[in-house]
């Protein structure tokens, strides 16, 4: 392995020059070109799939969950509820609970969430699907299972004074099957569902 200091210095000088050129090409040009193509061809997606409210202003992204709880943390039943979030729906600070499968704190949290759902929606514990009482890893999962959406329909309709069938129809419109029929899981997008609800029944949005 004997090597002259000069050869070593030369080797590092090559490495430094290579890193500079590669940084310009891969770290600057490549992302700029991709951004250009993305902004031209897929503007909506590239900019975060934002959705607009009645006023025409952005009210969020169809991909990112939002909070539909009151200041006390209780669910606002004029809205469909998303899954629990370990980061309180902080879109700029994603994350999960990371609680282990036998962590007593997680068991307690799940039991407490079940209680709230049982009392709010008048259902039994056995009717509550797993996604309703567990936090996603992103903390920003905008989707719930069809079972969890169905479980909320009657209460949302009642709070807003709307016919159940009308709310049911909106849920159906915001329900997505598995991709290609077999990839992933079916889901209801709560963010787009609530946005549609807000447009259809502005007087029921409350404060």
């Amino acid at each position, binding site marked *: 392995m004997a*090597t002259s200091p000069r050869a*070593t210095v030369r*080797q*590092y000088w090559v*490495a430094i*020059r*290579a890193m500079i050129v*590669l*940084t310009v090409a*891969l*770290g*600057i040009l*490549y*992302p700029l070109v*991709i*951004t250009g193509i*993305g*902004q031209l061809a897929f503007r909506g*997606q590239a*900019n*975060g799939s*934002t959705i607009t409210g009645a006023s025409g202003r952005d009210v*969020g*992204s169809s*991909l990112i969950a*939002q909070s539909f709880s009151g200041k006390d943390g209780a669910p*606002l039943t004029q*809205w469909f509820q998303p899954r629990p979030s370990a980061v309180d729906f902080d879109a*700029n*600070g994603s*994350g*999960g609970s*990371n*609680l*282990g*499968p*036998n*962590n007593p704190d*997680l*068991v307690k949290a*799940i039991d407490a969430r079940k209680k709230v759902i049982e009392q709010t929606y008048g259902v039994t514990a056995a009717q509550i*699907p*797993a996604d309703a*009482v*567990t936090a*996603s*890893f*992103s903390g920003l*999962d905008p*989707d*719930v299972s069809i079972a969890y959406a169905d479980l909320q329909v009657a209460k949302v309709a009642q709070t807003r004074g709307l016919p159940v069938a009308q709310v049911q129809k909106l849920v159906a419109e915001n329900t*997505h099957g598995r*991709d290609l029929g*077999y*990839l*992933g*899981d079916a889901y209801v997008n709560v963010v787009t569902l*609530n*946005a549609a609800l807000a447009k259809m029944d502005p007087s029921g*949005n409350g404060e």
Partner: protein
Amino acid sequence: MTNLWLFLAQFGTLAGILALAYRPLGDYMAITFTTKRDLAPERGFYRLIGVRPGAEQSWQQYLRAVLAFSVVGVLFVYALQRFQQWLPYSLGLPNVHPGLAFNTAISFMANTNWQSYSPEQTVGYTVQMAGLAVQNFVSAAVGIAVAVALVRGFTLRRSGTIGNFWVDLTRAVLRILLPIAAIGAIILIAGGVIQNFNPVETVHTIAGGVQHLPGGPAASQEAIKLLGTNGGGFFNANSAHPFENPTAWTNLVEVVLMLVIPFSLPRTFGRMVGDDRQGYAILAAMGVLFTACLVAGTIFELHGGGDSAIAAAGGAMEGKEQRLGILGTMLFDTTGTSTSTGAVTSAHDSMTSFGGMMMLVNMMLGEVSPGGVGTGLYGILVMAVVAVFLAGLMVGRTPEYLGKKIGGREMKFASLYFLTTPTLVLVGTGLSFAVPALRGSIVHTSILNPGQHGFSEVLYAFTSAANNNGSAFAGLTADTPWLNASLGAAMFLGRLLPIAFALALAGSLAAQDRAPVTAATLPTHRPQFVGLLIGTILLVSALTYFPVLALGPIAEGLHS
């Protein structure tokens, strides 16, 4: 029953895509590394950096070039983080503190992408693009280069050289990684992955609240993060974040990006040694291990009723995304841990005891099922050398692989190779609990979950770092002086020592003449050898890691 069909349909689609890519991509990569022709931009690049592309290197020179390039890479990424606040598009974020910057710089050079930090709150767009994403490209290219150099060891006869590192690096980046990453990035944007330079946008939400939506060039980084089996997320939640992995079909695209090069490299190997069947044998061993681990992990997650929190919720959905479901999640996460990517789409910390154990096992196999880009191929070729040697001992034949004698010198390098990672994992985990001063910081600051699961968090961290995977039982708080330093060291040594041993082995093989095939030569393209190779991999990892697995996930799973 439906889960079975859904699993088979998803698996069949993936296997079909990879099968379609196997020959064309494998052949293309073989041509890339054997042709004498340089492209015009390559010639310009060699002139700029002062390299003669025709100059062949000995294994020592090749290794020195890898080391120089790696050290310079670490310094670049370290410097960018330390000067962050003066860089453009830094989103007002401050300079990264030295311990964390050190850990992160090594992590990205080493193709590990362990992240002791939350990206949204730590690094701006410039550090992500010009620092981290550049390493995503070049660390992957280094892996491919070393793999190609080792394969040349088998093809060359009485040669003192094994190729030129700068040429291999350049071709891996320009001809393989860049075009596929660009296509992947555009597909991902179409699926909803963001790609912009917008600042964080404040919106008034539907229910009248306030939300801060992040922006950033995520898709360009996401594509190479996966294609280069790096794994470092643009966001903290990695590929669970809807802006990184918005749908079940992007999930499959991302899995394909992670697997396409590692599963096609056996073809490149077969082509270069002039016997396609040798490539199929390696592919078979990788494929069997991957499939078995995927099935096991999926079954554990679907039926994880023994764990108290899983039973309370009625399913293993803590830390998982609804759109991906358990099947999509396990396909992605098995891939992420089996390819040394370390990208995750769920919280491994919250998986069932045995499901989480499978994530550990996938890494403990030594990242050869199919392993990272390049690293997987050179890892499994080293294991093939060991398998040939063991078979030789058992039946009294001269150990030979592809016409090269496996003697004492070759076995020394192969043994050092496969001992490096377990040593780093076990010593690191052991020290964390055995040294009182360290144990205090581990128990009171780092570990999140009580009981055996807390032990598993630390074991997982060292397994991930030493194997250059980068995923985590992320409840662990790793931004502490001990873990930043020790995991940084584990990543550095876990990357460069095996590379050194693989290149030494390449040099030793290349120097040999090629022995003729005789009746006494063990055939290495038959199912018998595939079984032997799988057995060797399992033996080496199972014996080494079983005791620590028993202390962690097995104890937790059986106890609950």
